[in-house]
């Protein structure tokens, strides 16, 4: 593919190929149908789980297959060959929901849920955003109140939750005290808890095959065992979680750009106008050259950040940079790809049309472009 592939290990390449083969055989033939239907079959989780694809990045003791940030990128690169971000993020919602459980959860809880989710038998989702607080995470108002018997009662609402409609386990950020950052605590809430209401799938611009839900908590009671870490550790867990979440989003970003670039390139070679193939026009050749340059730069930065994460370095602002660069690249390159396809690029049968809608979320989800710039500029000492 490009200069950086040579630096991958054999095992990393085989992992990417396994994910790619899975995507081509199990996702791609159905991608259009699933996108239009707004969902993909639940069995896909089990199929992916059975070959270990859901276990990438999780410890073997808990049913995972090991591997770090770079391996997560390899699995994303492979899965995106299914040409739908919706299926990829739907299958991957546990990648953001489980790490707080793995790191802060009690032993009985971890044993109970992690393995099931990695096998694809159960679905996990992360619920942080609320109708009244998104970027301002510490502004959340969902309350968890400790009861006499040690259990907790949860009240509040969450929204825009990926896989929320079908999730069996929700990793929910709550407020357990009024201390702005020190009063946040994560809980696992099982889907069948009384008082939990789950909306129908929300209608979105893109990511159609991924279900997105609004959740209501009305006196939902969970046992102490479901609390992740001590009270007040939620903000720390959240910051740690953002690292891999944003890296994965960066992965969706540059792979989206790479797919759009590949399709646009095929189009300029096949489509003819004024008696020649489109690539006969220098303006389009140069446009493709720019698309290729941006896509490579986005991938290289993301790889380097992944390597830094795998070395154990803290790189909060570099992750933010990778997230912004890849998101901007995905939006720009898919825009150009649609342009290069002309009218066909505006039709729902055309994959670049889907990619361009899917790309639009990337500067918004998992921390907006503006919030990433806040992080970067703060690190630069400007705030």
């Amino acid at each position, binding site marked *: 593919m490009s200069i950086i592939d040579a630096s991958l290990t*054999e095992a990393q390449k085989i992992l990417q190929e396994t994910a790619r083969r*899975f995507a081509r055989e199990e996702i791609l033939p159905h991608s259009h149908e699933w996108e239009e239907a707004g969902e993909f079959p639940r069995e896909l989780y089990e199929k992916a789980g059975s070959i270990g694809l859901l276990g990438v990045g999780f410890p073997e003791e808990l049913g995972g297959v090991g591997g770090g940030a770079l391996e997560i990128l390899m699995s994303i690169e492979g899965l995106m060959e299914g040409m739908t971000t919706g299926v990829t993020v739907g299958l991957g919602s546990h990648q953001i929901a489980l790490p707080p459980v793995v790191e802060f959860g009690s032993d009985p809880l971890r044993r109970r849920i992690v393995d099931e989710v990695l096998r694809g038998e159960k679905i996990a989702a992360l619920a942080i955003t609320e109708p009244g607080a998104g970027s301002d995470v510490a502004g959340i108002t969902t309350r968890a109140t400790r009861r006499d018997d040690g259990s907790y009662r949860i009240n509040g609402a969450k929204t825009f939750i990926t896989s929320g409609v079908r999730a069996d386990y929700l990793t929910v950020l709550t407020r357990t005290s009024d201390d702005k950052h020190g009063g946040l605590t994560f809980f696992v809430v099982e889907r069948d808890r009384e008082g939990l209401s789950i909306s129908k799938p929300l209608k979105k611009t893109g990511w159609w095959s991924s279900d997105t839900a609004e959740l209501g908590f009305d006196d939902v009671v969970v046992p102490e065992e479901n609390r992740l870490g001590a009270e007040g550790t939620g903000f720390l867990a959240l910051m740690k979680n953002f690292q891999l979440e944003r890296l994965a989003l960066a992965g969706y970003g540059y792979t989206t750009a790479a797919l759009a670039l590949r399709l646009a390139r095929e189009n300029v070679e096949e489509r003819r106008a004024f008696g020649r193939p489109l690539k006969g026009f220098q303006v389009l050749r140069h446009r493709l050259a720019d698309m290729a340059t941006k896509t490579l730069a986005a991938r290289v930065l993301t790889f380097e950040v992944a390597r830094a994460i795998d070395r154990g370095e803290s790189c909060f602002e570099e992750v933010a940079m990778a997230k912004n660069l890849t998101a901007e690249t995905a939006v720009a390159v898919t825009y150009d790809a649609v342009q290069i396809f002309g009218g066909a690029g505006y039709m729902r049968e055309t994959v670049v049309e889907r990619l361009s809608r899917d790309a639009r979320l990337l500067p918004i989800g998992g921390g907006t472009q503006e919030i990433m710039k806040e992080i970067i500029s703060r690190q630069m000492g400007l705030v």
Partner: protein
Amino acid sequence: MKILTTVKRVTDPNMKIKINADATGVVTDGVEYQMNSFDEYGVEEAIVLKENHGGEVVVVSVGPSAATKELRTAMAMGADRAILVETDEKLDSDAVARVLAEVIRKEEPDIVVMGKQAVDSDRNQAGQLLAAYLDWPQATFAFSLEVADGWATVGREVDGGTSTKRVKLPAVVTADLRLNEPRYASLPGIMKAKRKPLDTMTPDDLGVDVAPKVKVLKYEAPEERAAGEIVEDLDALIGKLRDEARVL
């Protein structure tokens, strides 16, 4: 039972290939490589044989050093050990068959299961030539394979239908697409494959001269075909066959 299977490293068949400027081959710049699809069926069948009869699966590739990736993939699927006969030359099918024959004389497997052809050159010769060099029976294009009492019963895809052939082991069987559903190289399998043995040798070590007997003069893209058409009903079809295709 000792089962030997083979894998070839080929260009990703899902990518559009282009012939290079002097027509001596295809453009390999930026091309990805993977295991020949037909070999996935061969490897799968070898593993199934081992699961049913016990024994060992040895996987062999003749190709560049980078083909260790395809060998490790086969080991991640379940093969036990691998042999790479390393060469950067472009071998014709005859040279590949002679190299494999030497490996097989050393390894003495009970059966060889390999893909019926490679998806890059589509020559469909190595298995047949190999059986001839070994003077073993062969059963090509297998869609089913049963092994019992030193014999293999092979269902074969042939022109106009299927046929069944019984061959005495050791024999060479080549795999067709209906033979099985190749498993994935699972992630735990990939981790295990790292620790499985992989031996490397060269055609020289085996005493095989791989100079090609077949000379490729030039590569040419096939002529483009017009897109097909779906017609409303039988009358429309007959009309098209008469007036446009002029075959009636």
